[in-house]
């Protein structure tokens, strides 16, 4: 804002002052589709009510938004839909607190709010030409979904793709339909795993925690970038496993899920060391994380 604002004000009519830009004002979105992924994970498909905004809206996979239910508040989720899907965003959320409970109660046709995109997104340039090894646990898959969709849409730009999807139990596996679609793509290997005890009688996937399956799959570090997201404890061990397999820290990418409120590096909530996860993240390489204090 111009330093001369006051002078402008003093010299003219206040009515002619530029309208305020409100960084906290969300876009209004219409709920177009509701899909239950698991008993406590749901995906919403949201359409921009203002078509012009929808047309111009673009984002990088890995970026996130502040989704809000008016009356309950705002909550942060990754944008889970494909960047090519113009005019819409999708989010997947797990039932947790006040906002997610309110989101669970929305019906098709209802209005919710969306602010974004925020954050840095995945470093697409450094991924091109590489084999990609995705390892997602539980709701963490949501943060990878946009990137997976992007990579599959630009299939020729990337090498071999491995999708490792883990969950506590078979019922808790997300994106079951997407997985089928993704696995049909050329040169895509889909591995699904559930925690020991979470398997069903007819389960034909792996049984074991995600890091153990990474170990078992033993992806070749050369020419491969590993991208992982999941619960904090999974990420911790997945990073260790990948390191053991010989992945250099620069080629291991993860996204952090701190509590965030403003999304713009102001509210201070996601401050970890010198970075704000909302502005400088949420995507970090293991090397970048290594440099941060263990405060996330």
């Amino acid at each position, binding site marked *: 804002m111009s330093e001369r604002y006051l002078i402008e004000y003093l010299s003219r009519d206040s009515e002619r002052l530029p309208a305020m830009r409100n960084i906290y004002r969300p876009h209004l979105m219409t709920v177009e589709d509701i899909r239950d992924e698991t008993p406590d994970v749901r995906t919403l498909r949201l359409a921009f009510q203002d078509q012009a905004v929808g047309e111009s809206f673009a984002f990088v996979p890995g970026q996130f938004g502040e989704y809000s239910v008016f009356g309950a*508040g705002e909550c942060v989720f990754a944008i889970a839909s494909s960047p090519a899907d113009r005019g819409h965003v999708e989010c997947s959320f797990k039932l947790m*607190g*006040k906002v997610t*409970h309110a989101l669970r109660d929305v019906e098709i046709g209802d209005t919710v709010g969306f602010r974004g995109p925020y954050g840095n997104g995945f470093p697409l340039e450094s991924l091109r030409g590489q084999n990609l090894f995705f390892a997602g646990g539980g709701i963490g898959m949501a943060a990878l979904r946009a990137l997976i969709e992007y990579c599959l849409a630009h299939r020729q730009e990337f090498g071999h793709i491995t999708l490792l999807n883990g969950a506590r139990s078979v019922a808790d596996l997300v994106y079951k339909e997407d997985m089928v679609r993704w696995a049909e793509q050329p040169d895509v290997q889909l591995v699904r795993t559930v925690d020991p005890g979470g398997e069903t009688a007819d389960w034909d996937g792996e049984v074991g925690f995600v890091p153990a399956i990474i170990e078992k799959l033993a992806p070749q570090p050369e020419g491969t970038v590993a991208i992982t997201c999941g619960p904090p404890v999974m990420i911790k061990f997945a990073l260790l496993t990948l390191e053991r397999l010989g992945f250099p820290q620069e080629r291991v990418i993860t996204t952090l899920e701190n509590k965030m409120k403003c999304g713009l590096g102001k509210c201070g909530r996601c401050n970890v060391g010198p970075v704000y996860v909302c502005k400088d993240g949420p995507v970090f390489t293991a090397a970048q994380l290594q440099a941060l204090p263990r405060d996330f």
Partner: protein
Amino acid sequence: MSDDNWRPQIVAFVCQWCTYAGADLAGTSRIKYDPNVRIVKLPCSGRIGPLFLLKAFEQGADGVLVSGCHPGDCHYVSGNLLARRRFTVFRELLIFLGLEPERLQFSWVSAAEAVKWTEVVDAVTAQIRALGPRRQGWGAEARLQTSNSKAQSLEAQPGTRNLKPGTQKAVEEGIRRIARQLLQTGEAGVIVGYGNGTLKDVTTPLFVTEPEGVEQLVWNERCLNNLSVYLTREPVTRLGRVGIVAKGCDARALVALLQEHQIERDKVTIIGVQCAGMAENGRLAARCAVCDVHTPPLYDHLVEDRALDTGDWAEGDPRDREIAALEALTPAERWAYWQEQFARCIRCYACRAVCPLCYCETCIADKTQPQWVPPAFDARGNLSWNIVRAFHQAGRCIGCDECARVCPAHIRLDLINRKLALLIRDAYGYRAGYDATVAPPLTTFRPEDRAEFIR
């Protein structure tokens, strides 16, 4: 007062067995009455929490009516009798803060008393109609209206007595001796006491884990903190069995914590200290002027102060004069006084943090489903927070005044606490922090409890 067309907005919280059924009977009997009351049905008057009444006022109610079964008729044995005590205290609290009593009314109406129900509704409506609309905004503007009120001239009257600090050095030595012994024998893993602070004339809570460290323990007239707050703090309790330096008022907090199962008696060693009173602004602190626990009511070791001069307390508690002065004001003036106070609140929750009895890890003010205490730090939210805090302390506050001491906005929380403590002493013969075996006053009742305010 108001034009004839004005319709007060009144909400009635009623129990489903008596009053709701009584209101139904009024319908069946086609008895006409005023249409301004909206009924919210609950199973029992015992389910009607003060937060409901608060929220109703916050939302703009001109009046609130609570009605349940007559004493002895409760479908749930005693819900209405518990409610009676809660409402007695809550009502007095709101009146003390300046609400007109007519706006918050209570009645017993049985399932058979259709006529009484209609009479109560008509009477309450008429009274509220006569009062006119509630002062705007449950806060906010009210304080601006009466900036020149008498209330504003009411100023804190600190104790006028001088300190007689006793033999501080000897007491300090006594504390150190016992602390050393406890640490040496392993009876305590940590001693919670007072040390010198980083600024002149300030002490600070000190945690000593090694016998050599006891030399840092101090005792003087500035040992204001109520250290018992640390007994429910994991970073302290994980250091081992706690030995705690406790003045009389601190020991009362320990009694209350025992009563509420927050500490186990055999896991704490209490180093009781005879206390001659603490200083605020160089004078004897107000609460110390009427202290009756110079010797703590509960201790394992007692450090005596041989020069203890408990003085002549004839002067009384200076706060009682302030309370009386406030109560002599009109409701509007009182309201203005407290609005001005609460407007200063910045919701730092220091009052909550220092209170030994505010041990809830998740406070009701932080709970969002639903959001009973409005999150905004405005007049509305601040008023609710302060009322909820005060009510939660009713019958439990041991009067250490820590909340008032630490309030950066100098809100007179001590007056509210004191007012409620006096009310509970007079109405129920109960004072907190003396006897851990007695049920706290709001968890019990007597059939003959006061009920003069109930229609």
